[in-house]
């Protein structure tokens, strides 16, 4: 034994060298591989691992995390299924952070960074955390969480003097004592670099925001809820470091009482690179013009701009790396993107208003035309999510040919048009997956007939490196799913929605997909006896059945299954039925 001889080496490598080398290894996959070599290396990794992401909080326990990584500095935890962001998960499903925060506060002496996503965090939880970690906490992200109030924000503000990042994006926060928390933050903290409460409903007064910007001289990112933009004009003059601003809002022109045409008053510091404004309209758009050339990120998702407006704006932004819009941008706008934004890395085209009697722009449709243009014009694209109204195989082939850097591609085919130009899309999908060799995340949400069983088998065959997939309305029978499941060697997380597969096929597919550790399904063919799902029962595989909200909507039931070392959940609500392990 190495200890007995006083030798500090393994495989001829001194521990000192091992330690130094490991300092440079951050990638979790590499670390995982290193930790499996031998017990010695496992201990080394455990003691030097700085960050861990637990993609499914119920897959393990706080005690296990502590045993394995006692020196952890940074933790990211996720709990509720992604579908929770689309209001598909019952409120009482679970995801409480309490047991985690209890353990993190009691031990984990090196913890400085905590990121909780889609979890329920109570005011008590935050109080416990702050009591234990206030002197050390550098970054706290409560991302798409709920259960706490602004009183906790005030507590954090008062107590965590080293906090450089506070992120609350899209969380549901109970409001108490108005924006006193913001005043506390502004007066207690001087090292803040990121404050993000974008897409929350909490109030923020222009006075306190201005105070914050004045006092936190290192502030780089400020993303707020709604606050009238004309009242924020002065704020931007007092900062020299701000790089990103989002939120604010433009109210009705009609109510600005003579403020029309005062758009010259707007000023943003030279440091500004990323901007997003709510309800910005055609007239207000001009405030951006002097800054467009320097902009790296533009988010127009929550603006009231027309297709033409998008064209006008985007053509002035040759340095854009990130663009987020609704499909009102249209094919015309995407053509402008393709011509102008040669450095584009991330593009998101969200779904606009679908209503009959079209309130959105008549040109506001994205089709294969826009897709082709972007594929050919923006070779650096890594992340591309797009809602299309029409599609052809050729467009998908173009993506396979040109978008060689794609690692995350998500396509949703909207229900706008009764007829799609070309179906099925089997060949296009095959070309896309063959060409985009770096793809790790893939979503293909279409309509029945858009991807046949053969097409689905292509997906299985050609997804060598894909780890996450969302498939909607694909395939036409169980054969398709089973063929798919014979491939996808790296698939860890699979979401299926609105498909026609039987319970039995889903269970068999889950067993077949060799890397699968997380499965979510909504919409499937239930067997007459309902027991077919039990075919996928196996050790450490938690299966939850989330009942439909009412008997009249059987299509809404969900299956959630995931590997877990924690055994059965102890906090299941009545709407969630454990199939294995049983309660």
């Amino acid at each position, binding site marked *: 034994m190495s200890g007995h001889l006083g030798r500090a080496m393994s495989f001829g490598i001194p521990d000192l060298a091992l330690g130094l080398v490991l300092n440079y290894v951050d990638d979790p996959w590499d670390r995982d591989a290193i930790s499996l070599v031998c017990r010695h290396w496992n201990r080394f990794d455990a003691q030097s691992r700085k960050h861990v992401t637990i993609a499914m909080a119920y897959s393990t326990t706080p005690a296990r995390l502590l045993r394995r990584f006692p020196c952890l500095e940074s933790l990211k935890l996720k709990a509720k299924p992604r579908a929770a*962001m689309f*209001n598909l998960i019952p409120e009482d499903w679970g995801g409480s952070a309490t047991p985690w925060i209890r353990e993190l506060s009691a031990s984990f002496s090196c913890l400085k960074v905590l990121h909780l996503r889609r979890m329920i965090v109570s005011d008590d939880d935050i109080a416990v955390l702050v009591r234990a970690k206030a002197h050390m906490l550098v970054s706290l992200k409560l991302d798409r969480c709920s259960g706490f109030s602004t009183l906790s924000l005030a507590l954090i503000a008062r107590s965590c003097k080293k906090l450089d990042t506070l992120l609350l994006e*899209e969380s549901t926060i109970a409001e108490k004592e108005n924006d006193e928390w913001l005043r506390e933050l502004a007066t207690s903290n001087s090292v803040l670099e990121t404050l993000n409460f974008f*897409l929350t*409903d909490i*109030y923020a007064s222009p006075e306190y925001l201005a105070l914050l910007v004045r006092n936190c001289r290192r502030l780089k990112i400020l993303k707020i*809820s*709604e606050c*009238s933009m004309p009242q924020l004009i002065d704020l931007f003059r007092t900062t020299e470091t701000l790089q990103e601003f989002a939120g604010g*809002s433009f*109210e*009705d*022109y*009609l*109510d600005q009482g003579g403020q*029309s045409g005062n758009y010259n008053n707007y000023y943003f510091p030279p440091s500004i690179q990323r901007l997003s404004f*709510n*309800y910005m*309209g*055609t007239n207000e758009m001009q405030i951006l013009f002097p800054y467009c050339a320097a902009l790296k990120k533009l988010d127009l*998702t*929550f603006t*009231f701009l027309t297709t033409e407006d998008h064209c006008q704006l985007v053509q002035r932004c040759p340095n854009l790396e990130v663009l987020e819009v609704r499909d009102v941008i249209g094919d015309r706008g995407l053509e402008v993107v393709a011509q102008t934004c040669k450095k584009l890395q991330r593009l998101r085209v*969200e*779904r606009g*208003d679908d*209503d009959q009697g079209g*309130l959105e722009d008549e040109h506001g449709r994205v089709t294969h035309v826009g897709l082709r243009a972007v594929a050919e014009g923006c070779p650096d694209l890594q992340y591309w999510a797009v809602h299309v109204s029409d599609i052809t195989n050729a467009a998908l082939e173009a993506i396979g040919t040109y978008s060689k850097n794609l690692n995350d591609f998500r396509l949703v085919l*909207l*229900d706008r048009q009764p007829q799609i130009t070309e179906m099925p899309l089997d060949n296009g999908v095959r070309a896309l997956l063959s060409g985009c060799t770096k793809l790790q995340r893939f979503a293909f949400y279409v309509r*029945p007939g858009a991807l046949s069983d053969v097409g689905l088998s292509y997906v299985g065959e050609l997804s060598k490196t894909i780890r996450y997939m969302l498939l909607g*309305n694909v395939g*036409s*029978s169980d054969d398709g799913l089973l063929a798919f499941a014979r491939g996808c060697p790296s698939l860890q997380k699979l979401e299926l929605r*609105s*498909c*026609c597969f039987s319970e039995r096929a889903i269970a068999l597919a889950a067993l077949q997909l060799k890397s699968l550790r997380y499965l979510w399904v909504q*919409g499937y*063919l*239930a*067997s*007459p*006896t*309902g*027991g077919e*799902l039990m075919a996928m029962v196996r050790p450490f595989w938690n299966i939850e*059945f989330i*009942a*439909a909200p009412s*008997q009249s909507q*059987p*299509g*809404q*039931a969900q299956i959630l299954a995931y590997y877990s070392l924690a055994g059965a959940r*102890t906090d299941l609500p*009545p709407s969630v*039925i454990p*199939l294995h392990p*049983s*309660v």
Partner: protein
Amino acid sequence: MSSRAPPVELDFLGLHANAAATEHHGKSSAASSSSIRGMETSAIARIDPQLLRRVVVARPPVTAEEAPPAAPSPMTVFYNGSVAIFDISHQKAEAIMRMAREVTTAKRGDLGNTTLVADSAKDIPLARTKSLHQFLAKRKERLTRMGPYQLGRPGTTSGSNIKSLRVKKEAEAA
């Protein structure tokens, strides 16, 4: 006899309730021969899972220390026009109840593949995130308020007050 699990009478066949539903399903059960003498034998499936759960778990959820009693207690089943009493353990009873639940919430398999494909696409519309949904609602409200005039263009004043989305939501008390 466990005093903690009193005998419970469950109307599995729905003889006293769901009479209309029984009739409908009795007609369409060609393949699965699940109807005898007109009584729907998979009526067990229509039991509300909440009810079943409440019935089976006759006391608050157990903690890890207190395992449910392994000793068998009687379970009375009314099925197919006959009555049977079984001495089974709590776990087995749970398993049986679970099977019943699964069928309750399952779709009817005898409707055929194609119908269900069409149904599932209709039943399961594309979902939006809450923020996008709120934004589009605000947009609609802004547009209808401005009447025939385009967004962002000058129009005759309507004298309406600024209502931020926040205040509006409080007023609507959704």
